[in-house]
């Protein structure tokens, strides 16, 4: 007979594991990927593939040759980073190779330089995205028009169009404003952010699986809605109406998938509400008074930086005082 095992209690474990959480997040991201392929054609698929493959490859290389630790690519976290990074870039042909640079920054600097999954203070995909936005501002803000036909191979980027946010910034959004189109995703934008419907599908799945809680998305979107609503009521000519605000740009994607990243968001419910509030407020501030038409990435990264402080401040309620 084999030797008996001895360990401290407990002797049973729930079937929870990091691997399962990450692959479930990947599953939740697939509706967005499908919508992106439908709207942007083969480019979207190629960008997603390159991004995911590069993230996994870079993580494997860094773990094997630099850190010399057993590989953790099977846990699916590199795939999550790759998908999220792909969802944050426009579906142009240049992006197919540019996203590889983003992946290197996301995995190399955003994640592995801190010691790998769980130790990164910032959301790796957003680190990659912001790096690309600052390094390649033109390419990162050239948006192809969606609905070019299913799996069509775009020959040129001639059909580019701006996002509703960019149009609004230049006072060109007006007659084309249609909430339903935004909800379904018929607008210019990054791969993953266009369809609020697909994002909600994924988010509901994550909520059901208890991988995320409602606190961050609700407080994020709620704050954005209320804040932009107040502004709109004050001056409806200068400020966007609140529904368009939350349905366009990256608020839905950011609130449901980027801000809810376990590693970089606070742990207590109270902390999560504060975190979501900060993200929402910063997003609206950057959108309306900043240089960039979109502020979700910066807002989340700023709040990521505040997460350790929030964690320190928002302690769980003790049972015994």
């Amino acid at each position, binding site marked *: 007979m*084999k*030797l*008996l*095992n*001895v*360990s*401290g209690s407990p002797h049973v474990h729930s079937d929870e594991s990091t691997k399962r959480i990450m692959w479930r997040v990947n599953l939740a991201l697939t509706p967005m990927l499908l919508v992106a392929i439908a709207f942007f054609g083969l480019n979207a698929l190629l960008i997603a593939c390159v991004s995911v493959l590069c993230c996994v490859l870079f993580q494997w290389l860094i773990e094997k040759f630099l850190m010399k630790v057993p590989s953790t690519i099977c846990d699916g976290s590199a795939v999550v980073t790759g998908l999220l990074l792909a969802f944050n870039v426009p579906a142009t042909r240049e992006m197919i190779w540019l996203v590889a640079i983003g992946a290197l920054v996301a995995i190399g600097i955003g994640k592995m330089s801190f010691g790998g999954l769980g130790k990164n203070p910032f959301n790796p995909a957003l680190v990659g995205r912001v790096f690309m936005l600052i390094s390649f501002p033109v390419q990162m803000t050239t948006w192809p028009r969606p609905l070019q036909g299913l799996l069509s191979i775009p020959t040129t980027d001639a059909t580019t169009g701006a996002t509703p946010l960019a149009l609004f910034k230049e006072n060109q959004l007006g007659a084309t404003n249609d909430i339903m189109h935004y909800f379904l995703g018929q607008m210019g934008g990054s791969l993953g952010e266009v369809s609020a419907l697909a994002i909600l599908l994924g988010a509901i799945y994550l909520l059901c699986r208890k991988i995320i809680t409602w606190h961050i998305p609700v407080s994020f979107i709620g704050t954005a809605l209320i804040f932009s609503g107040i502004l709109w009521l004050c001056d409806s000519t200068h400020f966007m109406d609140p529904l368009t605000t939350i349905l366009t740009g990256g608020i839905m994607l950011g609130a449901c998938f980027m801000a809810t990243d376990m590693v970089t968001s606070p742990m207590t419910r109270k902390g999560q509400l504060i975190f979501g509030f900060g993200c929402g407020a910063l997003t609206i501030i950057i959108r309306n008074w900043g240089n960039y038409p979109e502020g979700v990435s910066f807002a989340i990264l700023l709040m990521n930086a505040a997460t350790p402080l929030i964690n320190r401040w928002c302690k769980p309620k003790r049972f015994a005082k």
Partner: protein
Amino acid sequence: MSGIWTAVLILSIIGAIFAVVLYFVAQKFKVVEDPLIDEIAEVLPGANCGGCGKAGCRAMAEAFVKQGNMDGLKCPAGGETVAKKVAELLGCTPEETEPQVAVVRCNGTCANAPAKTHYDGMQDCAFANSLYTGESGCVFGCLGLGNCARACQFDALKVDPETGLPVVDESKCVACGACVKACPRGIIELRNKGMKDRRVFVACRNKEKGGDARKACFAACIGCGKCAKTCPFGAITVENNLAYIDFNICKLCRKCVSECPTGAIHAVNFPPKVEKPAAPATAPEATAEKVEVKA
């Protein structure tokens, strides 16, 4: 052009104001300290191992200066060379001390003390010790989870994966005693290095009765007392079924080593005994090597 001059002027003024403020603040909060502390701290190894019993090397330097001499204060990590330098700075004579080395008093290797259970918990000796006997079933033996190796600041201790026991690298060990404190079972002892680095010691801590001790480990001291009877110098005492060799009395004659029925007494760094006079050729070469003799 005037813009540049304005900028330079403003920055210069700001710089000047800060310089003045900083100067006064520095004067106000100046800490008067004996410069000797810095000098001595410079001489000390700087590993902050805690072997001296102080919080770190800086605290030790302060203690030296405060006391003014070296009585009762010893930097085990620095050894004689550091002691001499400190003595020079303090202007006193260093205490003469015998150099020591950490000795692992357990021979419960995987072969001698086969595992009866498999430990599957946190890799920490102190925790495993609070949980149960350990894999071998010996309550006194090494758990092999490496608290001593992690405590060593000098990279002198490694757990050998083959035997499951820690091995001391004598060239690196400075006898700071960090491992002695880290071991929850008191297995590691600081012993005098001995003549030509030769030492004889009981590699066992088991205080159980002979039969019980042997159940867990074939190499356990069974407290039979043969060694104590053999020792011509009275260096060996047997208490609670366990023999102990006093390194201050032991003359390294090695009579006890061959007498021990379980091979619990280890003699290290002796040249291998010449079994038969017929093979003298190998003997002189072997003396150069450090060989551990295991009975």
